[in-house]
């Protein structure tokens, strides 16, 4: 079925198994570096995630799976290596920088050692977590509280005359999530910035293995609260790709509409807060006001301000009636006009634009080395948008442009959001107009998952691509869910964007990325 893709990307030496839209093939450990670098650098395929599965009980092995996307085709290539009798695997970080945090995460949660990895620090779990306890191994007892350890965490240090360190967080003065930042500063200039996260680790990936299927959907809504809809959408899509039924057409359109409403609410919020953090209070007041209007529509349409309980496996639970649809359209037109006016006024403020331009500039090479996603990537002209790359729901029937900027500074990230807001209005209008007027909202049969199989869900959240990789065992039960919020990828570059700026500009830079702590810490 995917013969062309197999021939183009996969060497004939490997036995390829087609599994839904996943092409999976085993590669000897000694070859993985070559296979990964060929796919990544020569074929220019984006690396989606690297994850491990613990199959010691059934097959006496661990496996490390490397998931690559093939943009434009909705197909994912998964070369994997098998570790039997060893707990070490070759690190590819020295060639593919993006793999660094993935491999550290595997080391922390599976206890598998990436040989040749330059950074030995654990990721997400802190120094009070016992060193030899690996929560994603199957023999880990999740109901027992582990003993408190007292290890140490070594921050990177800079030496030199006049260099001093500023520790900030994890508790901040504003109502934001917890995270620690260690600045090494010369005067006001940031020389080094190291974020330490993990304060909101909730054991989500372990819970995904334990909870019943419908509760798994609810769990996915809580991975990162502000992206409830897109997270549950990506998870549901991963499950749907593991079974053979079709999602009803009307549900596909409704998923598009809710996705874009979520994007609108959060982009309004970000536009407001980026302006507020420069001290431009007019922008702050208007951004939050517009967000609230969308949130009230969320509640009116679904009963939840965060669109929770809407997605379900096989479709959606909430409908938009013809009357409501008309009212929604009218109100959105009003909001759009309002927003246009607000942006026009803000653009007249020289002091505002001056704060945004050139601040927190991210280097293009660093961004591509780390595989930066979403708004931060598009602000540098990196064309990646899973609504177009891996069309899902009804996005293939809707016309819109990817919002791009090229400077990669705070201003570019703000303008990507502004452009996406206008695109979202148009997408919702198109979806409301072309949605089938009647029909089922959800597949009503019994959901059965393929055995020993792999499901992939990719959906473009307002921050960037939310990615789920799901593995089933030989009874068709879900045995592993890998959650990859775009924040996991983008947190790795925040330090680079901050470097060289003055300390008082950091909150603005951080806000212009507005990454999820919860989505990173899972």
């Amino acid at each position: 079925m995917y013969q062309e893709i197999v021939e183009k990307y996969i060497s004939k030496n490997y036995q390829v198994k087609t599994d839904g839209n996943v092409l999976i093939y085993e590669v000897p450990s000694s070859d993985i570096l070559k296979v990964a670098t060929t796919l990544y650098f020569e074929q220019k395929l984006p690396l989606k995630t690297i994850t491990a599965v613990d199959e010691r009980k059934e097959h006496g092995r661990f496996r490390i799976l490397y998931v690559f996307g093939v943009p434009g085709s909705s197909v994912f290539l998964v070369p994997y290596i098998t570790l039997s009798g060893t707990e070490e695997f070759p690190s590819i970080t020295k060639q593919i920088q993006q793999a660094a945090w993935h491999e550290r995460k595997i080391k922390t949660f599976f206890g598998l050692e990436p040989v040749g990895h330059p950074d030995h620090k654990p990721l997400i779990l802190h120094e009070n977590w016992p060193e030899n306890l690996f929560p994603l191994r199957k023999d880990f007892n999740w109901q027992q509280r582990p003993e408190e350890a007292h290890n140490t965490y070594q921050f990177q240090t800079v030496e030199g005359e006049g260099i001093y360190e500023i520790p900030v967080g994890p508790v901040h003065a504003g109502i934001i999530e917890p995270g620690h930042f260690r600045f090494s500063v010369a005067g006001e200039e940031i020389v080094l910035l190291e974020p330490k996260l993990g304060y909101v680790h909730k054991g989500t990936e372990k819970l995904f293995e334990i909870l019943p299927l419908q509760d798994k959907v609810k769990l996915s809504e809580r991975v990162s609260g502000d992206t409830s809809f897109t997270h549950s959408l990506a998870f549901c899509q991963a499950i749907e790709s593991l079974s053979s039924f079709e999602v009803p057409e009307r549900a596909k359109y409704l998923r598009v509409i809710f996705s874009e409403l979520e994007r609108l609410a959060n982009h309004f919020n970000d536009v407001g807060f980026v302006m507020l953090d420069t001290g431009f209070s007019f922008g702050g007041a208007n951004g939050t006001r517009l967000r609230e209007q969308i949130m009230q529509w969320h509640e009116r349409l679904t009963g939840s301000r965060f669109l929770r309980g809407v997605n379900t496996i096989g479709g959606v639970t909430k409908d938009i009636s013809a009357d409501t649809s008309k009212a929604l359209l009218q109100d959105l037109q009003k909001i759009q006009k309002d927003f246009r006016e607000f942006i026009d006024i803000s653009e007249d403020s020289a002091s505002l634009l001056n704060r945004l331009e050139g601040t927190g500039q991210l280097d293009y090479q660093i961004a591509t080395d780390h595989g930066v996603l979403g708004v931060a990537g598009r602000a540098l002209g990196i064309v990646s948008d899973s609504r177009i790359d891996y069309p899902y729901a009804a996005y293939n029937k809707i016309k819109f442009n990817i919002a791009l900027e090229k400077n990669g500074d705070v201003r570019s990230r703000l303008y990507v959001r502004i452009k996406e807001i206008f695109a979202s209005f148009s997408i919702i209008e198109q979806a409301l107009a072309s949605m089938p007027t009647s029909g089922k909202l959800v597949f009503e049969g019994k959901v059965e998952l393929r055995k020993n199989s792999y499901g992939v869900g990719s959906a473009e959240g307002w921050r960037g691509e939310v990615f789920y990789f799901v593995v089933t065992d030989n009874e068709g039960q879900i045995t592993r869910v890998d959650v990859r919020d775009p924040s996991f990828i983008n947190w790795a570059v925040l330090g680079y964007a901050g470097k060289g700026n003055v300390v008082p500009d950091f909150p603005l830079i951080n806000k212009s990325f507005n990454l999820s702590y919860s989505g990173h810490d899972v």
Partner: protein
Amino acid sequence: MTSIIIWTIQLALVPALSPLFVGVIRKIKARFQNRVGASIFQPYNDLWKLLHKDEVISEDASWVFRFAPYIIFAVTVIVGASIPLFATVFANNSLSDLLVIVYLLALSTFFLALAGMDTGSAFGGFGSSREMTVASLTEGGLIFSMLALVFAVDSANLFKISEAVSAFPLVAMMPIMLAFAGFLIAMLAETARFPFDNPATHLELTMIHEAMILEYSGKRLALVEWAAANKLLIFLALGANLFFPWGIATTVGLMPILAALGWFVIKVLLLSLLIAVLESSIAKFRFFRLPDLLFTSFILSVIAISLIIFI
């Protein structure tokens, strides 16, 4: 008898009214943001609340941290009593000298910066470092803008300046307006207002004044906050009564003094409105652009002085 009454009013007026003007500025800003905003008397409630709270003092704090709030507050009260507020009858007060006032205020800034560094917290440290950077750059503009008035009236006594300027013909006001522009910029820097500092921010890393007082709580925080409000009113009063001294009472009597008090409140309200409009319509400047602005303040004052001396 009358002089005792006037002296009492002079001493109490600044601490009594200063929280009100903080509340007024906040109220105007809230209205600009389409918010209702808290009552203009809210700062009084805040002070009352803080004065009744327990405080936490770091074990590493020295006497500087403990005494600084009293020194800072006392300085602002003394300065408030030594500047022309509504009457010019205190001309003989030796504290009313321009340089004495400016350096008394610098003394309070000095102790505040010391207190900021005292506990060894990183925020206090960079707050103090920023405050001293801004303060040292502001000093030139502040002194020179008022020096223009000294040259214009040949006296460094603030009451005499006020009395003399109120009798100036309109033509003579031109260079004085230039000096006022220089003073205004220096005033915004000294009182931790836009575009130098954001008194409403919650972002620790962007703070200047707030970063220095992060470690304070309870009564001492109340004193520091109150002193900051006093300082704001002192600068508003200096701006209103040195550069626009119209309506100030030059003779002792019930009616002139009541009228002068009315004028004082109106002028200060107008300046508060100016600050609120400024804070609602522009973004804060980048830290490294602040020296440019302070340099502008200095240049404006120097031009004003040259005009006064040579024309």
